[in-house]
Each structure stands twice: as C-alpha cells, then as structure tokens.
C-alpha cells in the first residue's frame, strides 16, 4: 500500500510548513517531494528596485541562518563589477563574520539532527553554545542574527580594539561545545546507529547534481569556494579542508565538526593578524556590466550574478543558494531509505528553505487541496485503487462516484 505523509511540524525550524512530502511503500520511502514556494517573496525582482547601497540590507534577510553569506557574495559581485579595492582590515572582518556564521549554522545542524533523532538534549546543548556566537555578534555588530556589516568596498562597522580580548575569551569559552559534539560522535553508540550508512549520497550523484558544500565534501568531492576561488582573507590564514568518502549522515557530522574547529581557528587568526587601518573605500557608482560573486556559505557555494547598467541600481540580481543545488539530490537519495530515517535524512540535508525559495518555485498542483487528514488520505487511496480496478474491468462507475465524493 502506498501512502503519502506530510512531514509537517517535523523540522523545528519549519513548523507549520508543508514542505516535504513522503510517499511510503511498505515502510520504505518510495518518493520524496520537496515543495518549495511558500516562502517565495520575489526577492530577485524586489532587488532591482534597490540601490547598490541598499541591496545588502535586503539580501541579508533572505535567510536568517546564512545572513552574512548572502551580502558577502553580493559585495564580491559588486566589487568585481566595479573593480573596487578593499582594505585589508575589512577583508579580515568579513572573513571573521562569515566564519562565526558558519559555526552557528553548523551548530544548528547538529541540533536539528539531534532533535529529529529524538535527542532533545543535544538540541538544547547546541543552542546553549550557539548563544555565545549570537552574543559576539550582538556585542560587536549590534544584531544577534543579522550583523549588517557588508557593503561594497568594505565593511560598515569596525571592530573596536577593546572588544578583541573579550572576543577571544568568548571563543575560548566556546571550546566545550566542540568537545561535547566530539563526545557525541565518538562515544554515543546509538547516535552512530542512527547516522552511519544512513542517507548515503554517492560521489556519482553529487557530481551529477552539482552538489556543493559539506554535503559534497562528505561524499568525496572536494569543492570549497574558499579554496577554489580564494576571497576575503582566506588566502592569508592557515586552514584545512576535510573530505570524507562515506557520504552518510555521520560523515556529514564529522565534516561539520571539523569545519567548526577550523572556523574557530580562522577567527582566532583573523583577530591576531588584523592590523589597524581603514575599513572601507568610498564607492560613488558602479559601471555597467556583469559581476559574479561566489562565497562558501555554511551550506555550500552561494552564487550571485549581478548586472548593472551604470546607474545606481542593478538591473538583474540572480541568486543561486546552496540549498537549491543540494535539495534536488535529496529527492533521489532518500528513495529506498527506511521511514524511520526519513526525518534524520531530511535534517541532515540541511534544508534552508529561506534561501532555496527566494526564487525557486517548485510544485505540482494546488498544495492546499492536498493537505488532508491521514484518514482522508487512506480513504482516497482506497478509492483510487477501486477506481483503477474498475477501470481495468471496463466500468467507469467507480471513477465517477469517486470524483463526486
């Protein structure tokens, strides 16, 4: 018997959403449909009405989880378009912000995977440590989630010298989080059972769909914009890239834990290497033409293509979020998995609908007609079976009555 299930309310961040629909056959996933579009806000169209200076403020609000990567990619595109030089200190501050954001986003990943595996305490513990990162953002930049530091040609706010020792101390106090996650990964038998050989993505699938970010690196494809197309202060700091071959949820977790360590290290190096100096160059206007900006967001490569016509506004803003590259593969990789693992697989794919839906509109028929109670679904599927049987027998009566119901 086939049945259709909505994963409504499953993901703590997307409660009330009707984003993932599973079709289940004999407790195995027969199909997974990702239905985006409910968060579609027409941002790309809206962006054409903003000036270059206003643009980062809008783009930050595409997604609360990667609120720095979006403007980071946009300012990269703008700087490529206009050939704007960026002061060194600004590059360090940008790197620092991006890496702090990566840490909090990866912590969230651990939290949601834990939550979906029935490990409520992990969810709470990661939030406890995530709060420290938010605190740093709030103290240094004024907002907990949306620091608004990026602007073409530099950063909006400098880091005051007095806060640097405090930041270093905060980062030291963050260390227990990594030890905790290390303990969960290595020491927890059941966490291993829940995640090892679950949701495996082969290298072939990763290459086929052009997947990016930790998901690709967990399957043996070493793509990372920070290494491939170095930007900001990444060439000046020392860090490593982790690649795993397994492609399962556990490998994803290992990659993310490793990246958090590296990010923390990068932030420390940035704080140490930063020299005082100007943090922005003034920007009068941008010439016409196309600029491409890529950054490594926590979930993978974030791609911006900005086109200007020499005025104060862009004429086209094209955004390719990492989630929209990674989610299509999920529809393929989840098929055949046990229903028990569905929630973990979906959480591990790190769906960021805010990002993915800024533009992509996917879907079939009217979704609201399909939100049915379970009983209704079962009844419908019975009806459909009857109808099909009747059709095979050459009678159309069943079909007519089913439609009337």
């Amino acid at each position, binding site marked *: 018997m086939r049945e259709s299930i909505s994963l409504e309310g499953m993901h703590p961040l997307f*409660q009330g959403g009707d984003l993932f629909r599973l079709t289940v056959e004999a407790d195995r996933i027969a199909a997974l449909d990702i239905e985006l579009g409910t968060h579609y*806000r*027409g941002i790309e169209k*809206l962006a054409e009405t903003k000036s270059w200076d206003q643009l980062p403020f809008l783009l930050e609000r595409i*997604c609360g989880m990667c609120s720095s990567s979006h403007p980071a990619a946009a300012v990269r595109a703008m700087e490529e378009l206009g050939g704007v030089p960026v002061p060194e200190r600004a590059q360090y501050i940008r790197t620092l912000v991006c890496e702090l954001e990566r840490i909090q986003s990866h912590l969230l990943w651990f939290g949601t995977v834990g939550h979906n595996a029935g490990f409520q305490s992990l969810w709470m513990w990661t939030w406890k440590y995530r*709060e420290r990162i938010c605190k740093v953002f709030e103290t240094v930049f004024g907002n907990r989630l949306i620091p608004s530091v990026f602007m073409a040609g530099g950063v909006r706010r400098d880091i005051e010298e007095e806060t640097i020792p405090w930041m270093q101390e905060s980062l030291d106090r963050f260390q227990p989080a990594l030890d905790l996650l290390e303990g969960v990964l290595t020491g927890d038998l059941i966490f291993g059972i829940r995640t090892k050989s679950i949701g495996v993505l082969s290298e072939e699938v990763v290459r086929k769909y052009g997947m990016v970010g930790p998901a690709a690196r967990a399957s043996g494809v070493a793509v990372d914009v920070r290494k491939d197309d170095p930007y900001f202060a990444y060439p000046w700091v020392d860090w490593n890239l982790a690649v795993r071959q397994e492609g399962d949820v556990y490998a994803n977790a290992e990659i993310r834990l490793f990246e958090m360590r590296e990010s923390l290290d990068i932030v420390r190096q940035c704080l140490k290497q930063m020299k005082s100096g100007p943090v922005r160059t003034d920007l009068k206007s941008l010439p016409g033409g196309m600029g491409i900006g890529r950054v490594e967001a926590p979930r993978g490569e974030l791609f911006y293509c900005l086109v200007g016509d020499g005025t104060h506004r862009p004429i086209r803003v094209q955004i390719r979020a990492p989630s929209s590259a990674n989610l299509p593969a999920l529809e393929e990789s989840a098929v055949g998995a046990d229903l028990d693992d569905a929630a973990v697989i979906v959480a591990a794919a790190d769906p960021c*609908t805010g990002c993915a839906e800024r533009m992509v509109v996917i879907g079939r028929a009217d*979704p*609201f007609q399909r939100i049915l109670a379970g009983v209704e679904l079962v009844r419908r599927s019975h009806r459909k079976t009857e109808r099909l049987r009747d059709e095979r027998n050459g009678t159309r009566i069943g079909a007519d009555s089913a439609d009337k119901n």
Partner: protein
Amino acid sequence: MGIRLQIVTRSLWIYPVVAGGCNGCQLEILACLSPAYDLERFGVRLAVSVPHADALLVSGSMTQRNLKRMKRLLLEMPEPAIVVAVGACALGQGVFQGSAVISKTADAVLPVQVYIPGCPPKPEAVTAGLGKLIKLIRQNPDR
C-alpha cells in the same frame, strides 16, 4: 472565556510558524526556549502540533501562498487561541514591502492580539512580549 484565558496564562504552549520569511524570527523564538532564556520557567512550552497550541506565533511576510495555510492553522487551534505577530515582516511587511507576491500583513489575515517588533526581535523582546500578553490577560480577562 475569561477564566479559560486566565488558566491558559499559566501554561502557554506556543506554536511558532513562518509565513514566508527568513526564519530569523523563528530562530529567535526557539532561542527563547533554549537554556539561555528558558521560557519553560513560565510554563511556556513548544507545542508539538497546532491542535496542542494556545498561542500561534506568526513570523515572516505573508506571502500569498501562505494565506490559506495560516487560516487553516488558526482553525485547528482549540479555543482559547491567541495569535502573536513576531517581527517586522509580520507587522508591516518589513524589508519586503513592494513585492508583488506579498500583499498583506499578519493582522489583515489573522486576529492578532500582540505585536512583537524587531528584525528579528531579540529573545528578550519575545519574552517581554509574551510576558505582556500574560499580564494583559490576567488584568483584563474579558479583553
């Protein structure tokens, strides 16, 4: 109704829902339940599903595709049901003002009783907002 509302203030189960937005408000609402703020001190809990909820915390800009869904969620909530609008988008479309697919604010669709401004509101603001809601109901149970 009055007494019922009074009782609800003692154990307010919230159900945060994003009506098309950046999840920032959602993150901050969940941060309220995390160890640093811990709203469970006041009996506030995250409801598993809408039928368990007492308060619907709506955040995000109301995209057209979400209007019907929001109404359905409200219908599924048992009485007494409280609706709280969280964040600039839900209050007045925020930064997405002017988008063709966003035409309404939260209070045009749902009977919003409390507004929590901010982009995103800090967990302290959400806590204060819920505290004010509780205080308001206790002082004036008949609204």
